[in-house]
């Protein structure tokens, strides 16, 4: 019981509780600096996003005492009530702590499962931990392992490959229609959070030009500044519709803003090139009859929402595969961790040094052969006593740490530095 995770997330704690810790992360002292001061904490990692705060740490001995001190620190930091910590925080040990960290990094624990931001946030927090000297050999290894697990989940399952927001569903559709969005023109009619988001995603995926039409021209100009697009007058919409490959509408108008005739005429003028209409407005802005025209694809908010719902189900299925990967990786890591025993390490360390001594003696055999028997024995004795003296302190130190149950990071370090075995990640056949 050396690895502990204490945390809260959007499932266990309401926003009022979560914000107490996440808001505080921006002040001048990084929480890790204070956590590292707590007696018994050897290594620590602190992750704080709007949906979660997690402290992942490695303790020397007496984990209960350290845990108590950490809870007290968090209570003070978040200004929590007496029972809040036990009520909202979850606590995981060893394999379970690892499993939780891997799941978080792989976005299995996110509010929108499969969303990519969390991996970046974990990496950023890890960088902060490294900057604050809070990580050592164990946590470094665990975090790097977590990044690999996240990558494996991403490439081996479809958890991140299906759009689960309306705006991304629009981008996916646009790609199935146009293949490549490069050089495509978007017309954004009306303002609205969802439509602007969709427009932004389309631009990010290659659409090169955006025209903006609003009832009030000033608003169009403002938005055009923001999108680096072109503001057009609402009255000109009919005239300029032919330039659009993709039209997104979200006005508050009670009637159709774009009629079937408008679309038909624009289509004729653009020589029937494909046209994708996205109507996010309620009530609708585009006459549904426009969707019956050849080469026109009309999707309204419900159509997009249906895609999103189905994609959610698909992600759920993919998540089961991802959980299996996480379980597999935790097992793999834990097996490696349990091989970090003192005695076998000392034995293999001694074997390695003896092998080096023997090897060097053989290499220099031509001149050693010419020495008298007595001198040769002296040289051999001298060599092994130098090696033993060098190894003496580290070995005694290791045995000493064993008594305090804190030898594992040192063993890991020795194994790593002396290359006594392969690391768990490299064992895996790629």
């Amino acid at each position, binding site marked *: 019981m050396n690895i502990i995770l204490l945390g809260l997330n959007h499932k266990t704690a309401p926003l009022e509780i979560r914000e107490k810790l996440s808001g505080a992360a921006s002040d001048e002292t990084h929480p890790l600096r204070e956590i590292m001061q707590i007696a018994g904490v050897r290594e620590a990692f602190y992750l704080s996003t709007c949906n979660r705060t997690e402290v992942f740490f490695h303790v020397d001995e007496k984990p209960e005492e350290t845990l108590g001190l950490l809870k007290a620190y968090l209570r003070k930091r978040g200004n929590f009530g007496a029972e809040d910590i036990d009520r909202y925080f979850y606590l995981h040990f060893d394999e379970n702590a690892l499993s939780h960290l891997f799941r978080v990094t792989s976005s299995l624990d996110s509010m929108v499962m499969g969303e990519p931001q969390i991996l970046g946030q974990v990496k950023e927090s890890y960088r902060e931990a490294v900057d604050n000297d809070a990580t050592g050999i164990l946590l470094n290894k665990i975090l790097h392992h977590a990044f690999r697990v996240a990558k494996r989940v991403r490439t081996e399952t479809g958890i991140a490959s299906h759009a689960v927001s309306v705006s991304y*569903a629009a981008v*996916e559709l646009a790609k199935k*229609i146009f*293949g*490549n969005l490069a050089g495509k023109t978007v017309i954004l009619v009306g303002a609205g959070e969802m439509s602007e988001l969709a427009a932004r995603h389309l631009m990010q995926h290659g659409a090169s030009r955006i025209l903006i039409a609003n009832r009030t021209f000033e608003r169009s100009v403002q938005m055009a500044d923001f999108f680096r697009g072109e503001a057009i007058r609402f009255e000109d919409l009919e005239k300029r519709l032919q330039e659009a490959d993709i039209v997104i509408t979200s006005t508050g108008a009670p009637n159709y803003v774009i009629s079937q005739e408008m679309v038909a005429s624009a289509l004729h003028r653009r020589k029937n090139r494909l046209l994708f209409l996205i109507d996010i407005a309620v009530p609708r802005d585009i006459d549904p009859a426009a*969707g019956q025209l*050849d080469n026109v*694809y009309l999707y309204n908010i419900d159509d997009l929402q*249906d895609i999103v719902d189905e994609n959610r189900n698909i992600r759920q299925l993919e998540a089961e595969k991802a959980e299996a990967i996480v379980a597999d990786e935790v097992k793999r890591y834990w097996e490696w961790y349990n091989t970090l025993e003192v005695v076998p390490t000392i034995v293999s360390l001694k074997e390695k040094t003896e092998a080096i001594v023997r090897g060097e003696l053989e290499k220099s055999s031509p001149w050693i052969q010419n020495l008298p028997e007595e001198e040769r024995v002296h040289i051999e004795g001298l060599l092994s006593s130098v090696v033993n003296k060098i190894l003496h302190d580290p070995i005694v130190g290791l045995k000493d740490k064993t008594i305090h149950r804190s030898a594992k990071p040192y063993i890991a370090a020795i194994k790593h530095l002396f290359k006594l075995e392969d690391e768990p990640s490299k064992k895996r056949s790629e």
Partner: protein
Amino acid sequence: MDKILLNIALVGYFVSTTGYLGSLLIRRIFLAKISTWLLAFAFFFHTATLFTQYILTGQSPVTNIYGSVSFFAWVIAGAYLIFQIRTKTRTLGAIVCPLTFLLVLAASQLLHGGGLLPHNLQGPLVTIHVMLSVTGEALFVLVALAGMLYLIQDYQIKKRRFGALTRLLPPLKDLDRINHYGLLLGFPILTFGLLAGSTWAGEVWGSHWHWDPKLIWALLFWLCFAFVLHQRLAIGWSGHKAALLSLVFLIVLLVSLTVVTLSFPTIHTFR
């Protein structure tokens, strides 16, 4: 020698075909990606076969009907591979590849059964006529197959069925681009092919034109081809209409190639 190369090509086409179909079945695109490389591999050996045949016999590979079928398949596969570089149309391979395989298989089984053309039908102009016409027709077949996928994908997106099938099928624009370039390239090639044939006919038969069923159908197909291309370029029929029209006119081509050749008495015969 050419037989060995052809067999390697056949095995390649077969494995690639299973790969493409498997990729449709398990709905994973990576299998189709491997299949594309296999197809390229098979195509390479097919090309080598055609060259070897030419070197060994000193005659163009299209001197009999089976050689022409093999050449027909070769053009379809080659044109598809070129389009694949510029577009994201992997699943089109799932139709192109089995078709190529079957055509080459049929041709290879009968390659030595078919005799050479009668003496009066040999000559460079005949070779040019057959090669160009076959290339033009093969390009049209590819255009029509792309059109078929276009119609399926168009239906899916129109009906708002955005499932695994839609994800697997190529983007509409890419399929439409095959339609565009296939027609643009295929039409002049076919036209020159027919002109070469007509020139040769003038020399051998004494007249450039005969009211022969085969020739009438060939002219009809040429008119259809010209019509689609005209609608596309001048009227702006792209996307749905162009795809539909190509698919309809494929029937004319198939009738011309099979029914007319086999069931009507025609002077345009390979025997």
